């Protein structure tokens, strides 16, 4: 398991070191704080989709769920909802969305790709309709501040709020996946759903749980994004984020065939993706190349992984 993480960790250290040596601004507290913040947000989404990917499914609706949650939050703040109630309602909504996805996939036996693709379109459409496709801000509310800001200062360096959320999410997710029977069941069903069912595992319920976790974490990131960005563009907020999340999961060692994945790997991979954007900016590479570079790095990452696996297998065999 740890071998899988080594590759991606090496990649992270390499890009980190390279950028730090090339541009002194990189190591500034402001930049690192930003990097940590955004990496954490990406990692939270990535962990969510990792659960679905481990079951052999996929969730394409993450970005739209983020957009929906951010838009509705703005609307609720505008109509003077109690912020805490609003947050709870939106978390409930995210859980409900995951539940619907899970039910459609397990009970209606629809393909995850199709279900969540429709979700991607549907939630985005609803966001735009509900807000009349107008950008909105959040004003200033004390409760939201207390919920989502809280920076912990270490010298001049303030640890951003999303990082704390990530730590909690990551610890819980890792325990769930590696230490509980449900995590084991999830891995088993990802490898062989029928075999898991014949072993007395309630496979449908577990799959539904995975979708619920994924949408919940998407909703949570939606709230965090809303707070960080301080405004929402219903047509754009969260767009493409599902792809970053999936990329982080895959680069972090999840197999799209299901049955494989580590939480730590996903977190590092999310950081790599954010780090790349940061480096491209700082190193003065044309930002138009950003997507191309991220695409190439992910491709190289998964290829290297595959090569390492084969070499390891050969070495083991030779022993």
């Amino acid at each position, binding site marked *: 398991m740890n071998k899988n993480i080594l590759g991606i960790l090496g990649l992270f250290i390499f890009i980190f070191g390279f950028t730090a040596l090339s541009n002194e601004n990189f190591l500034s507290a402001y930049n690192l704080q930003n990097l940590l913040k955004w990496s954490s947000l990406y990692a939270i989404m990535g962990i969510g989709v990792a659960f679905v990917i481990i079951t052999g499914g996929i969730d394409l609706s993450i970005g739209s769920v983020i957009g929906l949650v951010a838009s509705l939050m703005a609307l609720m703040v505008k109509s003077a909802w109690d912020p805490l109630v609003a947050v709870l309602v939106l978390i409930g909504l995210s859980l409900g969305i995951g539940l619907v996805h899970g039910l459609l996939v397990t009970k209606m036996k629809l393909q995850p790709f199709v279900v969540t693709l429709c979700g991607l379109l549907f939630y985005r459409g609803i966001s735009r309709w509900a807000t009349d496709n107008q950008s909105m801000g959040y004003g200033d509310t004390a409760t939201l501040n207390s919920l989502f800001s809280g920076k912990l200062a270490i010298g001049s360096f303030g640890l951003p709020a999303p990082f704390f959320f990530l730590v909690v999410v990551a610890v819980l997710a890792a325990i769930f996946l590696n*230490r*509980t*029977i*449900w995590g*084991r*069941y999830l*891995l*088993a069903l990802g*490898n*062989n759903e*029928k*075999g*898991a*069912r*014949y*072993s*007395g*595992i*309630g496979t449908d319920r577990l799959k539904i749980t995975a979708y619920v976790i994924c949408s919940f974490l998407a909703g949570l990131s939606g709230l965090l994004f809303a707070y960080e960005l301080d405004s929402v563009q219903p047509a754009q907020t969260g767009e493409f984020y599902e792809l970053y999340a999936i990329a982080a999961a895959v680069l972090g060692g999840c197999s799209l065939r299901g*049955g494989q994945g580590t939480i730590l790997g996903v977190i590092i991979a999310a950081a790599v993706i954010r780090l790349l954007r940061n480096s491209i900016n700082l190193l003065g590479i044309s930002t138009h190349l950003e997507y191309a570079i991220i695409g190439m790095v992910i491709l190289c990452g998964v290829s290297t992984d595959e090569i390492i696996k084969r070499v390891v297998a050969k070495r*083991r*065999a*030779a*022993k």
Partner: protein
Amino acid sequence: MEVAQTPLLDVTALEKQFPGVRALHNVDLTLNRGEVLAVVGENGAGKSTLMKILAGVHTPNAGTIRIEGREVRIQSVRDAQAHGIALIHQELNLAGNLDIAANIFLGIEPHTAGFIDSGQIHAKAAGHLKRVGLDFPTDTLVADLTIGHQQLVEIAKALSVDARIIIMDEPTSSLSQTESETLFKVVHDLRSQGISIIYISHRLGEVMVLADRVVVLRDGENAGELAREQISHNAMVKLMVGRDLSQFYQRNTTEPGSVVIEAENLRTPAHPRIGLSFSVREGEIVGIAGLVGAGRTELLETLFGVTPAVGGTLKIAGKVVHPKTPLEAIQFGIVLAPEDRKQHGLILEMSVRENASLPRLRMDQKAGAIDFGAEIEVATEMVKKMDIKTPGLEQVVQYLSGGNQQKVVLGKWLAMKPRLLLLDEPTRGIDVGSKQEIYRLMEELAAGGVAILFVSSEMEEVLGMADRALVMHEGVITGELARDQLSEEAVMQLATGNKAAA
């Protein structure tokens, strides 16, 4: 034949090492033209590994392979094909959505500028089909064929690449009696056409009928060889296990206890109009005999909650229950070792430890947390008790031999201490030694009060192990035979739907 003294195939000092497992050591093998060579040995003896090396799936660590006296290196399946070697895997590799002709020529389609020459394909395919005695139109979809016929298509496919050596790895393990007989005839025909065949099987009866010579492997090494006139059941077994296996079936029937399971007019989704009634008592071993497709697997799957019953009643220890999922069935004390262990019985990518503990995790949990100590204990005990050959608890079950995989399946259920043990073809693909162990285990469990219901297509097994047999035909239980009524004729009569004769 005497013209060429050199054998067609000559393998010497072959070595194959897998991580933690020495699969082959110093193995020799020769094969002559037009010979049917049987290779037998216990589970994990290395038979499949040897064949996969010949077919280019694995590469050996050392040793030489000579074909017609010339040393060759077989690095890929393509190399093997070029040397005229074709392996028919136990798991068939046909594309069900394509027709027979397309399957036979898959990857080697005659074409002009990329356009497939259909006429030629069908004409040639028809010729190959004839050689294997399969008389279907070449545009029949493979998915519409029975497994037996699909196997013949595989053989036709081998012929289409001019294979001189056809290797069959446990070809009859999922065939019905009649399908097997067709296959034997094809093997005979191929031999008379000068094609050499290597035949792997755990069914020694078949080997005696077919083989010109038998090579025995044990623990990855040559254990001996038997010429045609030396071949006998006992001689093979002795070489395979290194000891005599007398007293193969040891059923000491005891007085059965109270009724564990009772079905009344139970109707399965496969045959919704047919009601099935039967019961099994504590300590009783009941066999279900019948031909392939008689609805036996469907019955077990209904009892196990995979395909819930559509009518009738099922009582466990007098209480009416209705298992709708395997999970519910397990909670009633019903477990199933399924027919298809790779798909249903195991999580192939997981380790021996993880497979062994899977059903038990729920019981040993502490607030949802896996009890890793208990898990290792369960797995260790299983490996010891079932005598599973594995380099360790962390070995991925995919890499265990068939018999050892089956032991893992049984082991994980026995750790659950079931009341009713359902076994679907419990010894399919399992060597004689392990077979006897499984029978001993059944006997032991029954003595401990477990009710056992097993499906078997091997007549001997039903006759040897069952206290009582239910015989099924096209979804109907056509009869029930007590131990003193059990005979091959009686079972066959009922299995073919001949109710009156019983």
